[in-house]
């Protein structure tokens, strides 16, 4: 099947074209699977093509026109991927949305793209769309609501509402009437037609619609598939939000290009079980997933018997020493090889199996910095976990790590076809076939992001490592600031170091323009809660546990350790943390403190917790505060707390090296 990876042929300039090719050449291979009704319901490429065509015809029947936008809101399901392709076939533009977006966000996006059709997963999302529609100043552009799950939908007014399966039935019936028109529409798609529009959540301001063309998606998919040797035998688990560009590239772009199988879990709750059942060969997860799993592994190992614990500890040491070398193809002594082999039998194999990672050939993580121990842990087990660096505007890939050149502190070399340059101020710029067309109806932003030559600013500060040629990212370019004394302030760099401790879930480092740095910390309720349980420390809430003196003591140790490590780097030594507090609530996207992709919104936080910031710098030992929170059901409330502020030791450079040496 090597011919599949041949350069994009003139005929293969759209996703529907790739689908047709797959149905033709890989007709009986599985294209989509979904865990539903207790088993993995499967569709071959042939079946998928038929389903998608029926859906496209049905959409035509309902009056979908070229250039229309079709919003898709729902969890990862084959039907939703099909809806996207079906929309493309009709010349329309799919716009996947985050299904957990609050009504205001959704109202904005639906209005902004002017979607005439909305595909919803189930009643919940339909309700949300209807709610958005009934908002006083909402644009009433949605004409047709389609839904996948019929449950609970009987009572709705169906004049503008249809089940996807009914639409498909309509479509099949209309084949003779509209088939030719559809074929004509498909044939009209070319490399520069819009493939998809994705809204970036953005750390500030309103979301922007990133328009990606077929060229963007297909070229990127082709280049990166070749980079990692992906082929039609690979399996991926589609569990990341459909509105995120990564999911579109992996589950749509690369899947269509290589013809591999996209597996959709039953629900978010069963994701881990489904992951284990499928055992993907190609896998992407953000660092927090790996982090969470590692924490989970450690917690579970705490409870296991002495023999297993001993085996685990012993062989994880061996793995740490030998695993990465083996993975990188370096030479390893016979003794180590044997020990690693035994470890594979007793620990690594079973561990990978229970995690569902037994079959991974290529694994990626990105989005945030990953803790070196976490990264090494998975690598040492023999999982080929790598890092990449990317963003929506680049169709994901800017840099990625080639096999055998994997390190936790770099993000790799430029992906095939991507050019990268570093600006004067350290900001990273790139130019590639994947570079987005424009921000939808936002020429201003487009111009400020992408220059005439096609160079796009990433907004991140970084540099190429001389020795390896790999890119290292320090922080968001605009977040890199100056301390009062003029030294460099890179909060993310410190925050990441803090977050590498399992006990710390989030950290916000403050210090731009100030004399010294301080930090606000969120503990990880999982890890710390487990610790509390084992030490018989009773707690009723996050707040109570966060304020526990022993928790404070532990966090303080972590902060000091981070200070020691930060102090080692001359440029960043000024970023050591002098004072910190443990926040009384978890930072939450619902409260606007983080983005949906769990990135901290600094501005919001420094505004909302202004009293705490003041206290961190006025020398007081404690501070009383009230904070507004939003509960799951949307109600709002206030929580009150008195927080302790702790002073921390800081190090000189020499001192730090001594500490590190010990």
């Amino acid at each position, binding site marked *: 099947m090597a011919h599949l990876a041949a350069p994009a042929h003139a005929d293969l300039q759209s996703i529907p074209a790739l689908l047709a090719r797959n149905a033709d050449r890989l007709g009986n291979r599985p294209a989509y699977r979904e865990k*539903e*009704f*207790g088993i993995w319901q499967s569709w071959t490429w042939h079946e998928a093509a038929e389903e998608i065509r029926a859906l496209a015809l049905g959409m035509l029947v309902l009056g979908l026109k070229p250039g229309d936008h079709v919003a898709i809101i729902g969890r990862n399901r084959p039907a939703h991927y099909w809806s996207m392709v079906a929309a493309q076939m009709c010349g329309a533009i799919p716009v996947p949305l985050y299904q957990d977006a609050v009504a205001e966000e959704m109202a904005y996006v639906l209005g902004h793209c002017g979607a005439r059709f909305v595909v919803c997963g189930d009643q919940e999302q339909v309700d949300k769309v209807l709610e958005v529609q009934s908002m006083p100043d909402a644009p009433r552009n949605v004409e047709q609501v389609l839904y996948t799950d019929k*449950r*609970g939908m*009987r*009572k709705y007014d169906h004049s503008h509402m249809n089940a996807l399966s009914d639409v498909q039935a309509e479509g099949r019936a209309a084949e003779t009437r509209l088939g030719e028109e559809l074929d004509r529409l498909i044939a009209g798609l070319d490399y520069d037609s819009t493939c998809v529009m994705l809204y970036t959540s953005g750390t500030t301001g309103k979301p922007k619609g990133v328009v990606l063309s077929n060229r963007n998606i297909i070229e990127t998919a082709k280049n990166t598939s070749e980079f990692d040797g992906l082929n039609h035998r690979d399996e991926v688990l589609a569990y990341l939000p459909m509105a995120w560009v990564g999911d579109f590239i992996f589950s749509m772009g690369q899947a269509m290009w290589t013809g591999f199988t996209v597996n959709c879990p*039953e*629900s978010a*709750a*069963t994701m881990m*079980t489904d992951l284990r059942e499928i055992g993907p060969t190609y896998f992407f997860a953000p660092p927090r997933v790996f982090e969470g799993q590692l924490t989970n592994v450690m917690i579970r190992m705490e409870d296991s018997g002495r023999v297993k614990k001993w085996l685990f500890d012993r062989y994880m040491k061996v793995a740490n020493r030998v695993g990465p070398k083996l993975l990188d193809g370096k030479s390893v002594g016979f003794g180590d090889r044997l020990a690693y082999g035994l470890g594979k039998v007793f620990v690594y194999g079973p561990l990978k199996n229970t995690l569902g990672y037994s079959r991974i050939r290529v694994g990626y993580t990105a989005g945030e910095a990953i803790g070196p121990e976490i990264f090494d842990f998975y690598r040492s087990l023999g999982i080929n976990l790598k890092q990449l660096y990317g963003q929506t505007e680049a169709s994901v890939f800017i840099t990625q790590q080639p096999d055998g050149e994997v390190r936790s502190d770099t993000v790799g070399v430029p992906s095939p076809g991507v050019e990268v340059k570093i600006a004067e101020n350290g900001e990273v710029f790139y130019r590639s076939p994947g570079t987005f067309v424009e921000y939808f109806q936002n020429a201003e932003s487009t111009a400020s992001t992408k220059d005439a030559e096609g160079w796009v600013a990433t907004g991140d500060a970084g540099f190429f490592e001389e020795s390896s040629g790999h890119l290292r990212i320090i922080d968001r370019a605009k977040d890199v600031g100056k301390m009062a004394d003029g030294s460099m302030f890179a909060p993310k760099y410190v925050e990441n170091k803090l977050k590498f401790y399992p006990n710390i879930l989030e950290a916000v480092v403050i210090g731009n323009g100030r004399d010294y740095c301080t930090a606000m910390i969120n503990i990880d309720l999982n890890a710390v809660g487990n610790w509390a349980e084992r030490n018989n420390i009773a707690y009723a809430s996050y707040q109570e546990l966060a304020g526990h003196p022993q928790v404070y003591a532990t966090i303080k140790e972590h902060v000091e350790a981070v200070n020691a490590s930060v102090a080692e780097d001359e440029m960043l030594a000024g970023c050591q943390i002098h004072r910190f507090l443990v926040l009384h609530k978890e930072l939450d996207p619902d409260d606007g403190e983080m983005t949906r992709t769990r990135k901290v919104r600094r501005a919001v936080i420094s505004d909302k917790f202004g009293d705490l910031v003041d206290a961190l710098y006025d020398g007081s030992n404690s501070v009383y505060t009230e904070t507004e929170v939003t509960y799951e059901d949307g109600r709002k409330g206030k929580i009150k707390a008195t927080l302790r502020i702790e002073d921390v030791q800081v190090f000189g450079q020499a001192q730090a090296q001594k500490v590190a040496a010990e």
Partner: protein
Amino acid sequence: MTDIESNPLTGQPAPAEGYVTADGRQIGGVLMDLRNITLRFGGVEAIKNISFDVREGEIRAIIGPNGAGKSSMLNVISGFYVPQEGEVWFKGYKRGPMRPYEVARLGIARTFQNIALFDGMTVLDNIMTGRLNKTKSGFLSQALWWGAAEREEIANREQVERIIDFLEIQNIRKTPVGRLPYGLKKRVELARALAAEPQILLLDEPMAGMNVEEKEDMSRFVLDVNDEFGTTIVLIEHDMGVVMDLSDRVVVMDYGRKIGDGSPDEVRNNQEVIDAYLGVAHD
């Protein structure tokens, strides 16, 4: 069908006017008619000359204080108790004396007040038992797992999986029911009853012992069942609020007698019912 006599008068269900509920559901004619039921245990009269009907597609509640005879009434309907007097008419035919399993075959399924799941089986197997009356394959076919047996097993499984999905119990599919918490057990029991694709579903205190959240879930499921499958539901419930929200018509029992029958509003304003619930002394 030897146990069913034709209605001597008409041979057809009594022509009853259907009606449409406030939320737009169509209620049909009389599906089941209980006439002058009296049930005695030894000298004790558990049910005293009670008559009421159940219409197709409605949610019919039976309420009353403890010991009012509600469960006995349900047991009469499901054939577990045979009343000394009175007649049960179902789909226009008078039901002769029947064993409970024969009643089940007519399309009457039920859940139990004190959960009656099969503890030695998984959730899936429990629900699959609900489909035993839909199974036609013979003994030999099952013993050799030939043709019909396997086909039917798979067809049953498909149906059951839809119910599992409907009641949102996917993640406990293969758990032995003994290990489940109370609320989930109740749901599995409902699933088992639904698997029989009943015409009438009898629910014996489906919300008993549940917390508010579980009650809300269960109420939603009961309504959804009625709505999605058009199943006629007869339910016993203690919680007045739940009954008033869910049901179309309510029978009120007290000390084995019927003291009220009508829409929730009518029943709520019935003096005798108020007395019974407020514990006014009986004469």
